[in-house]
Each structure stands twice: as structure tokens, then as C-alpha cells.
């Protein structure tokens, strides 16, 4: 059995070296399909014997992508395009981009011309998703993805294989939900280490990731939790993976005991039913998804979920990590803020983007927030 530090190092290595992962898969003769934020039918890609690999952008200067995007488009979309134009994804067979927000709409259309070597596959999801016509449209979107994947990779789709992949993904969802809970009782695990456990899932085959997470869960069972000297908080946002930001959480003594982050727990909230045909089950899964800024919900139940989760996990406050130029999150922020106020749950908002190199403002905000929570 690996010890905790070895496992955490492994997660960190995967999370911080996606290119190495990609090259290793390609060297082993695997085909890679990139998956853009926020949701893509990874199960389909997986079932066709392809490796889905998350493309959520990175911290790098934006130069070539400026030819395509004005500065006020979110840096996630911009940096994905920049990475593509810099050949960072060289060898990938295709990219699946869902137009779930206005910035992602632009990314898909620009990709065709900016990175013509990697085919763009659109995945149109329905916003009115929990009804018959929405489910049918979602299924048609999946069929389109399958057809495009077959053209781009030569791989073939089989519904029986999809059923197997759905099982693998559902099991992965279960262990990710479990590790999220268990980590809340382990303040000795740093914010960066927690982030790596989630982030690594984008760069490794899900079955392999499940094995690693299970190993971690196993070793964590045998470790008594350190004295909880950190202040428990919940995070919310699209991303919370910048090393400099995560370091501040630890430095100021805040422990992330739960999250509502799109790149983290939001990915694992909903399982596909175990029914057949498996493609229908996958469409059914999307119809059940909710509590996310890019999924239509006039009741904005997400805000209530944040408050409930924070209370259940004993979080004393919520840190809203707002990605700049992300309207879905910016609209939700006001509703979340009001829900937290109504529940007398302290909250702080810090703005981030993929180009930030100086987090001193965030540090000050988080230090002050810690002081508020300590009082």
C-alpha cells in the first residue's frame, strides 16, 4: 500500500503535468480526445476506446489567442485556444466543446480556424433538459458527437461498451464524492493537494483514477485526523486550482471542507442510471443535472445547495472564487451572496483569472475573512 504522501505526490504529478500524461498515452498508441469545460459526454469517448483529456486552459500569457478574442472574454476560453495555437495539444484527435456559455460558443467557432489540425466537435446540450424533447435533443447531440468521433478517430461506437463505461464513470463519481467528504476530516491535507486529487481526474483514464482515489481513501482511514486548527470553509466557482491561490488558503489557515467548483465536485454530483440503451441513460443523466451556473434553473437552487452543503460540512464561511469575465458565475454571485446573507453564513468573493500572477489582493481578502471567521 502506498503511503499518503506518495499518493498525493502522484496526484500532484498528474495534475501538474498534463503534457506528460498526453505524451505517455500517445506513446502507448492511445488516441486522445480533448474535453472542454464545463460538461462533455466523456463516457462516450471512453467507451470508444479513446482517452478523454480535460482542456480547461492554463496559466500562460495570451498572445496568439488575442487575434481571435477581445480581452473581455474569459481567460479559460482564451487560454484553451492559446494552448491549441501553441501546439500544446499536438497529437490529440479532436476536441469536444459544448456551447454552454457565450465564451464557449466563441471558442468552438474560433477553434475551427485557429487550430485546424485538431477537429472541433460541438456538443449541443439542451437547457430545457428535464423533459421528453430536451432528452431527445441531448441524445441527438450525443449521436452527433459519436459520428464526429468516428470520423476523427476511426473508432467505433457500441452501446454495450458505453454501458460498461457508464459503470466506470459512476463508480468514479462515487469515490470522488467519498473523497470529498473524507478530506473534510483531514485538515493536514493542503488545499493544493486537495485540488490535485480533483484536477488529476481530467488527465488520466477514469478507471485508473478510481484505483488511485480508492487507495487514498484506504490510507486515510488509517490516519487519525490532525487537530483541526484550520478554519473550515467551502469554495464555489468555476476553477480553484491556481497554486499561488491555494497556498494562501493554507498560509492563512483555511481548510476547504466542501466545494461547489465546476472543475471539482460539480462534475461528480450526478450518476447515469444503469438502464439500456446506455445512450438513453446518458441523456437521462444530463436531464438530472442541476445546481450549476451554466445549467438553466429559474429557482437558482444552487445557492441553497451551497448554504446547505456548507452547513452540513461545518464550513464557517464560503469563498466565492469568481472567474473574471464569466457572466454565468457573475449573475449567480448575487443570488449566492443573498442566500448566504439570509443564512448568516459569512462569505467573501475573490476574482481570479488564468493570467493572474499576483494574488496579494486575494491574500488580503482571505486574511481578513479568516479574522472575521475567528471572531
Amino acid at each position, binding site marked *: 500500500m502506498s503511503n499518503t504522501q506518495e499518493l498525493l505526490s502522484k496526484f500532484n504529478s498528474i495534475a501538474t503535468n498534463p503534457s506528460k500524461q498526453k505524451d505517455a498515452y500517445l506513446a502507448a498508441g492511445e488516441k486522445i480526445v480533448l474535453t472542454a469545460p464545463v460538461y462533455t459526454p466523456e463516457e462516450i469517448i471512453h467507451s470508444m476506446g479513446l482517452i478523454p483529456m480535460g482542456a480547461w486552459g492554463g496559466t500562460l500569457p495570451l498572445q496568439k489567442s488575442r487575434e481571435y478574442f477581445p480581452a473581455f472574454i474569459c481567460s479559460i476560453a482564451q487560454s484553451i485556444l492559446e494552448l491549441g495555437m501553441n501546439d500544446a495539444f499536438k497529437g490529440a484527435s479532436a476536441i469536444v466543446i459544448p456551447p454552454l456559455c457565450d*465564451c464557449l460558443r466563441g471558442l468552438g*467557432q474560433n477553434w475551427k480556424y485557429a487550430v485546424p489540425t485538431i477537429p472541433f466537435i*460541438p456538443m*449541443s446540450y439542451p437547457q430545457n433538459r428535464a423533459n421528453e*424533447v430536451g432528452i431527445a435533443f441531448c441524445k*441527438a447531440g450525443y449521436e452527433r458527437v459519436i459520428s464526429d468521433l468516428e470520423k476523427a478517430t476511426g473508432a467505433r461506437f457500441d452501446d454495450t461498451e458505453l454501458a460498461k463505461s457508464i459503470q466506470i464513470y459512476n463508480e468514479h463519481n462515487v469515490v470522488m464524492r467519498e473523497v470529498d467528504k473524507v478530506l473534510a476530516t483531514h485538515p493536514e491535507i493542503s488545499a493544493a493537494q486537495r485540488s490535485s486529487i480533483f484536477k488529476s481526474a481530467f488527465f488520466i483514464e477514469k478507471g485508473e483514477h478510481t484505483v488511485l482515489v480508492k487507495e487514498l481513501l484506504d490510507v486515510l482511514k488509517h490516519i487519525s485526523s490532525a487537530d483541526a486548527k484550520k478554519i473550515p470553509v467551502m469554495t464555489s466557482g468555476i476553477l480553484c486550482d491556481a497554486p499561488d491561490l491555494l497556498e494562501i488558503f493554507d498560509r492563512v489557515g483555511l481548510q476547504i471542507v466542501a466545494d461547489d467548483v465546476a472543475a471539482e465536485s460539480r462534475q461528480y454530483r450526478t450518476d447515469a442510471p444503469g438502464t439500456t440503451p446506455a445512450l438513453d441513460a446518458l441523456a437521462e443523466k444530463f436531464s438530472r443535472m442541476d445546481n450549476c451556473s451554466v445549467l438553466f434553473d429559474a429557482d437558482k437552487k444552487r445557492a441553497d445547495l451551497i448554504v446547505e452543503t456548507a452547513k452540513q460540512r461545518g464550513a464557517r464561511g464560503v469563498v466565492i472564487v469568481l472567474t473574471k469575465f464569466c457572466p454565468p458565475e457573475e449573475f*449567480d454571485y*448575487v443570488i449566492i451572496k443573498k442566500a448566504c446573507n439570509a443564512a448568516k453564513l459569512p462569505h467573501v468573493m475573490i476574482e481570479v483569472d488564468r493570467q493572474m500572477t499576483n494574488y496579494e489582493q486575494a491574500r488580503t481578502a482571505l486574511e481578513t475573512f479568516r479574522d472575521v471567521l475567528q471572531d
Partner: protein
Amino acid sequence: MTEQIKKAPRPPDPNSGKYKLDYIANKVIKDAFEAKARGEKVGWCSSAFPKEIIETLGIPVVYPESHAVVVAARGGGQRMCEVAEAEGYSNDICAYARIAIAYATKVKDTPEQNIPLPDFLLCCSNICNTMINWYENLAKELNIPLIMLDIPINPDNEISDAQFAYVKGQLLAAIKQLEELTGKKWSDERFKEVLKMNKRVCQAFLEVTSLGKHVPSPYSGFELFNLMGPMMFARQKAETLDAIETCLKEYKENLAKGVSTFKAEEKYRIISEGIACWPWLRVTYNGLKNRGINMVTTIYAVAPGFLLYDDFDGMIRASCRVPMAINLQTSRDDRVKLIKGSNVDGMLVHVNRSCKVWSGFLYEMCRQVAEECNIPVAYFDGDQADPRVFSEAQYETRVQGLAEIMESRKGDVKA
């Protein structure tokens, strides 16, 4: 000191197209206020929701986008945006949305224009995803029902059977929801009448927009903005047909006489790209006019004329084909067609901070359009309703640059 003597404004001619257009714009709001006073439920509706549904059911609605335009054009944009920002809405969010949320949740009374507050909301996502977030927040903050028609961007050149079925299913459900909400009943006969009128209005409007191809144009393209409002929210009404036909007659007369409402010599003709910069409309107009540049066409103003169909299915297809619901290639081809049909010398692009969907693939589309049509392109930064984003100096410089390139292409540059 010389005392300036201002000319008294000429009283509006009640038989003019402009008067009639203004009358329609005001009447839609007046009717909604009266309906509200009678106890009817009044809706707020996104501009690209199929109006034929609303007109057939006889439901009073008003348009927050249109209201935001009036507020912004009359100088209230910054004030209203700041109200929303004080509530926590980022200044990065669409300024139409900020103005509408500020009005509905806080201000409720503006000197620029008032509209009745909504009892329900009708959202259509064929413009942008931001519309969804905007209407969600209104629904949540006001605790009122929201009927949502989702029309995702079409990645392909043709409308798929799946998209058609999805939209049709939602529309049928929306009609039922509206019947239950308002107590009004759907009538196939009334729908046919509405479609007939819609088609006649669209045809007249397209004829107006096609007159821009004449050199010189019988109008300043900025006047097309006056027609846009009634075309967006009242194109199924007989008075709109009368107003558009009056405009058409006036412009045809101009053409016959060789005169124009463009108040300068038309030295250059351009297409403008993007939503109008409403808070700085006069400045943007004058910057062009002073250089003899007439904006003769723009997809923004022309597009409502494309909403022309004979039946329910045609209405669905048109709703899936509005400018913001289509891919880059189709968007490019629409512009190329307009440019080639309008004797255009250049393109002026508004990089609109509010509109991420329009700005998302704007640069690449304009590059392709410029190449295909062999015209120069100039860009300026601005916003559809927040005046703080625009710089007059930058605008002047960019327009001057465009004028110089257009001039040089005419071979008239003096050494």
C-alpha cells in the same frame, strides 16, 4: 456677448414615417400599462422570442432590451448600471441586463422611460446564453414565473431535425403554459392572420433596407435603427405596416428626387457591425457624417426582416436562424451578401463590451468578410448601454483611419 437664437423645433408631422414609428413604440408600452391597470398579467419578453405566439394569444408584453436602449440613449445608462453594480452585479455583465435588473428590482421609475413591471417572463436563448442568466435572476429576484424557450447556437449550416423538434416541442409547451398563466386561448385562425401581417411588414421592411444599395443612399443607415424597435416588437400590427410603408414611400421619393436624409455628401459607404453604441449614438453618427461616411447597411438593423414565414414550422426555422444563433460561416455569408448587395467601401466594427456572444468570433468573422469582399475594416471599443466603455478620441482616430484607407482605395490620395 452674442445671444444665440435657437430655432424652435419643427412640430412633428403626424403623417411622417418617423412620427408613426415613435407612436408605435410608445403605444406598445401604453397598452401594457393599461392592461396592467385592468388586472391583466404583463410579461417581460426577450427580443427574439417568436412574437407571433404572443400576438396570437393577445398577451401584453414589453421588452427590457428595448427599454434599456431608450434609457441608455437618453443618458441614464451609467446611473442604472451603477444601481445594479451596487447590488453586486459585475460591471462586466451585459449592460442591458444590468439596466433591466436595476429597474425591476430597485429603481422602478426612470425619467427616461417607464415600463410596467413584469408578472411573468418570456426568455429565448437564441440571442445569447447571457439572456438565460439575466432572466433567471429576474425570476428569482421578483419571484415570478419564467417561460424559457431554449434555442442553442446551431454549429452547422442547416437546422437539424433534432433542433427543429426540440424547439417545436418547447414552443407547444410554452403556448400551453401561457394559456394557463394568462387565461388567453390560442386560435389557429388568429395565428394565420398574424403570420400574414408579419409577412407583409417584413416584406415592406426588406424593401426599405434594400434601398440602401442605391448610390447615394436615400437615407442615413442610422435611421434603420428607428425602424428596428417596431420591427422587433410590433411587426404583426397593422399600424406597423402603415409606418414602414410610409417610410418606404418617403425614401422612394428621396430616391426619385436624388436627395437623402444623410446630411452630407456621401463620399464613402460602410457596413457597421455590432449593436449600436446607444449612449453615444450622436457622436458615432457625427464621426461618420463629418467625413462623408454613410452607414448604409448593418445586419443588426436588417435582421428583423428575415423573420418572414408562412406557417408555424417556418417560424421555428426562422427563430433558429437569427444572427446570434448561427455559426461563423453562416454569419460571415450573411454579411458578405449584404456588402455585395450594397456597394460598400468599408466596415466599421463595434467591439461591444456588453456582448460576449457577438464579440466571441467577431475578429475571425470580420477577417473572412474583409477578405471575401476586399474591404478595409476598423474596430472601436464601446458598449451598447454603458457609456463608460467608449472613448470618443479612439472612435475618431479609428474612423479617420478607415476613411483614409477607403480614400486611398479610390485612388484619390493626394501626395
